[in-house]
Each structure stands twice: as structure tokens, then as C-alpha cells.
């Protein structure tokens, strides 16, 4: 398969994730959509690594995975903290920081 196909698929997955973030309001699903976008980036990194024939892009992908795991842990900690304070789990209701 041409590398182009992988890159276009990655663009499609990224756009899907961005669309999900715009549509959904539950912070949990928004975190899942962030995962989708990070994974789309990972796919592009690995595809470019294969295109160049160099393993360094895969190291990038592994580091992105580490960062995604950190982001999930902190995000889920925030969601648990929001739930414990009996605040609504809806990003439109949590607007105190809005300028």
C-alpha cells in the first residue's frame, strides 16, 4: 500500500476526533476524542517513519503514547474530582473559567 493511503486515513481519523470534540459535551467522551486525535497523529508518525525507512518516527510515536497516558490519568482524575464535588459532568455547565 502507498504511504499516501495511511496519511489520508490519519487525516480522516484526526478530523473525526475534532468533530467529536465539537459535538459531544461529556468530558469523558471529549477525552476519548482527544485519544482519537493523538492516535491519528501516531499513525502519521509511523507511516512517515516507514516512508523514510528510519525507526526514529516510531520513537516519536512511543513518546506520544506516554504523553497520552499522562493526559488520560490527569483528565480522569479531574473528572473524578468534579464528580465528587457534585458538579455537573457537562462542559457547557462548567464555565466558571470562561473569560
Amino acid at each position, binding site marked *: *500500500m*502507498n*504511504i*499516501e*493511503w*495511511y496519511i*489520508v486515513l490519519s487525516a*480522516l*481519523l*484526526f*478530523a*473525526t*476526533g*475534532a*468533530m*467529536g470534540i*465539537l*459535538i*459531544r*459535551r*461529556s468530558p*469523558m*467522551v471529549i477525552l*476519548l*476524542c482527544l*485519544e*482519537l486525535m493523538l*492516535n491519528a497523529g*501516531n*499513525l502519521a508518525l*509511523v*507511516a512517515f*517513519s*516507514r*516512508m*523514510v*525507512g528510519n*525507526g*526514529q518516527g*516510531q*520513537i516519536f*510515536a*512511543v*513518546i506520544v*503514547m506516554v*504523553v*497520552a*497516558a*499522562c493526559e*488520560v*490519568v*490527569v483528565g*480522569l*482524575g479531574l473528572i*473524578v*474530582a468534579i464528580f*465528587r464535588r457534585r458538579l455537573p*459532568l*457537562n462542559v*457547557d455547565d462548567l464555565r466558571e473559567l470562561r473569560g
Partner: protein
Amino acid sequence: MEAVLFFLAAIGALGGALGVIAMRNPFYSVLALIVHLFSLAALFLLLTSAFVAAAQVVVYAGAVMVLYVFVVAYVGGGGESAWEPIPGQRFLAPLLGIALFVELAVAVLSSSLLALGTDGPDVNAGFGNPAAIGRLLLEKFLLPFEASSILLLLAAVGAIVLASNRRQTS
């Protein structure tokens, strides 16, 4: 054969991604994301990067998704209200998504990367296996490796602080 596998995995990845944003119940969204992650691991295998595929299955589909399932079970999957702060948000968002995809696709396909239209160069059998990744990670990319370990530690401490049950002092 490779094309068939690619399209099967691509359909799985795209279907999983659409399932994540279409399901009302967050629990089903997490299950759709697991389908997506397994399909993505298959795509990584097609790109001859075995270690990244294995890490994807073990770290994401294993550990991170279990964390998600726990939190969804703890918080409970409430339905979302139908109220929209911006009128027509539900219809504007797909338009923006399609525009983003077209823009990305045009930007990639019109770039002057000549190797994009090829299958990539022939690589030796050890390309992307754990030994090659480990050598790169511990020789060339030692500093990012150590920095990511500090980041993981900070994230673990931060999650404990955020989710701990202490009383608010104010």
C-alpha cells in the same frame, strides 16, 4: 493481500472512531475506542513496526481502557442534555470536520514529498522490532526517555492529588 488487510483495518479504525462520537452511553464509546485501537495496531503491523503495535495493544487497549472503564463505572454514564449553547452546533461541527479533513488531505497530497506515492524503501527484517526500538531509545533518545519517565511520575502524583478525598480548606 496487503490491500485487503489495509482496508479491513481502515474500516475498523474509522468505524470505531465514528462509534466513539455517535454512542450515547460513554461505556459503548469506550468499547468502540477499543475496536479502533486494535485496528490501528493492525495498521502499525502493516507498516512493519511491531513494537509500536504491541505497545498500542498492551498500553492502550489494556491499561488505559481499563482505567476508562473503571471511571465510567464509577461516575455512571448519564445522557447528555439536548440544549445547545450555539444554535446548529450539531450540524456546523461535521461541516468543520469535513473542512479540516479536506484541508489536511490537500496539504499532504500536494506536498513535494516524492516518497509519498511509494511503499517506502525496502527495510531489513529487524526494522521496528523491540531490539531496534530499544537501541534507539537508550542510545540516541536517552534524554526524552528519561524526561518521559519524570512526566509519568508527575502525572501519577497529580492524579492522586486531584482525586484524593481530602476536605477543602477554605
